[in-house]
């Protein structure tokens, strides 16, 4: 029960290694020594610019995005009591994509695209929740079905926007849809959000463990089920919306990282949720490093890499376990 510190310490170490790796490699390679020199305040000014203004923010953005997605995925899985749930399952990424694509179509860039994506994601959340709420009682399966159907609706709108968009805008739109970190802005807000949610989740963790056993059982054991479910839903939605507005819809991280960690660490949410923040962050940092070097100087969308890395790893872990 008290063995939380060792797995978390190992994950922190892995995260740091991934970040150092990600900062060191790229179209201009740096030795770990150079990287260390810059991080401790020395190094040439070219190296300083390269690392502090380009690679470090991008690496931190990747870490924050991956962490947010994995934590949101783990929360959704508890909320829906369905291991197939991912942060996008309730149509949130569709709403975000429509918001972002409309902004791109209108010709704006940067922060406005992110803001529009965030607004779209929150709209999608409210829509699904409102519809699933219906006559007053919602069950996980009802929420899930509503989400999947609404997601299909968003999918149609996305296709419509793509079909009507001028050809020169299509590559940018497709990159956004596949998840791309090259336009991620300042990583600080997302990192703060990630740290806050990990701190908040610790006192909630035991209640989440009980909720994972079903709402009736949880209520009988003293959990106020409905407020807790609301809180998880809002929390997971905000986290996902933040991730999506930073980096587009990067698939797979939110679905698979929680599972991988559960296979190895068991299912205590007090351990799994911070572990997801670290594990999801590390996976996306690694994937983004690969995306930058595989066909350098061109870049791949990072979502392609997460899937290509994640699928075999997950299948291997699944095969190895019972």
């Amino acid at each position, binding site marked *: 029960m008290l063995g939380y510190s060792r797995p978390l310490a190992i994950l922190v170490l892995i995260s740091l290694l991934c970040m150092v790796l990600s900062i060191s490699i790229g179209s201009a390679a740096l030795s770990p020594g150079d990287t260390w020199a810059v991080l401790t305040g020395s190094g040439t000014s070219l190296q300083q610019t390269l690392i502090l203004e380009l690679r470090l923010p991008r690496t931190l953005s990747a870490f924050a995005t991956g962490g947010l997605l994995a934590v949101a995925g783990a929360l959704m899985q508890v909320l829906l009591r369905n291991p197939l749930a991912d942060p996008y399952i309730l149509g949130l990424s569709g709403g975000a994509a429509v918001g972002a694509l409309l902004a791109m179509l209108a010709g704006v860039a940067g922060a406005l695209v992110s803001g529009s994506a965030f607004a779209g994601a929150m709209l999608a959340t409210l829509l699904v929740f409102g519809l699933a709420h219906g006559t007053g009682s919602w069950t996980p399966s009802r929420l899930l079905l509503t989400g999947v159907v609404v997601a299909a609706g968003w999918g149609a709108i996305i296709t419509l926007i793509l079909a009507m968009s001028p050809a020169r805008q299509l590559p940018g739109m497709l990159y956004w849809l596949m998840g791309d970190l090259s336009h991620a802005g300042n990583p600080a807000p997302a990192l703060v959000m990630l740290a806050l949610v990990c701190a908040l989740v610790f006192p909630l963790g035991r209640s989440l463990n009980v909720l*994972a056993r079903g709402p009736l*059982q949880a209520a009988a054991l003293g959990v106020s089920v409905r407020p807790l479910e609301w809180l998880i839903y809002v929390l997971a939605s905000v986290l996902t919306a933040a991730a999506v507005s930073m980096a587009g819809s990067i698939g797979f991280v939110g679905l698979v990282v929680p599972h991988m960690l559960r296979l190895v660490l068991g299912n205590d949410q007090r351990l799994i949720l911070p572990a997801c923040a670290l594990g999801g962050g590390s996976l996306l940092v690694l994937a983004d490093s690969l995306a930058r070097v595989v066909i350098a100087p061109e870049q791949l969308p990072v979502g392609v890499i997460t899937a290509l890395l994640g699928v075999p790893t997950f299948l291997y872990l699944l095969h190895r376990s019972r």
Partner: protein
Amino acid sequence: MPDLNTEQLIIDIPGRADSTALSLQVGAGETWGVLGPNGVGKTTLLHTLAGLRKPRKGRVKLGTAALASLGRRTIARRLGVVFQDQQDGFPATVLETALVGRHPWLSPWQMETAEDERLARQALETLGVDHLSGRLVNTLSGGERQRVAIATVLAQSPDTWLLDEPTNHLDLHHQVAVLQLLSEQARSGRSVFMCLHDLNLAARWCDHLLLLYPNGEACWGPTETMLIPSALERLYDQKLITVEADGAPVFVPVRG
């Protein structure tokens, strides 16, 4: 002072007319059995008594306080529920499952202490499932799972036990062992209220019975006053033969 009482309680089963209003007083040290045919509302009654469903009319009181006015955590410290079937969304070990029973006793910031783990292990041992403590619950047999569910409530250590078919899936020996455990709980001043399918187990182990008839009528009282063969035949719509064994009546269904 009775632990659990109901005032003119009518449970809410959608689409069904009001049944007889129940004014029960389940006192400390008493063991109640609820008997009735399938679908008569035994589980709904149990969930209503646990505060998991709203009654249509009347109210449930825990001690002197109305159940509806108490928080879930306060209720969970005084009242434990064994459900008819256990869901297992995510795999958890037997020990983790029993440890969940300690949840209402811990503050959000608290980790489970060594004492909690001792109580959980002791509960598993009492139910004879301590050798399974490292196993995943979803790999157990139905009977083993049922015993783990009872151990969870034992670790929760409530004053009032509500149980929905606690002998489900259990072999004869474990049925007796579980009922024996519940009798001990009652003897130590707690109260036990359970739905049972087996008339003879109820007749043997319960000191009070509540009969729920399909037409919505209900009657309750000390067991010896409730075991009227004609009433029981009407309850189950089944002819019975009454024989005497070990100084108590045993009811056997007529063949054909």
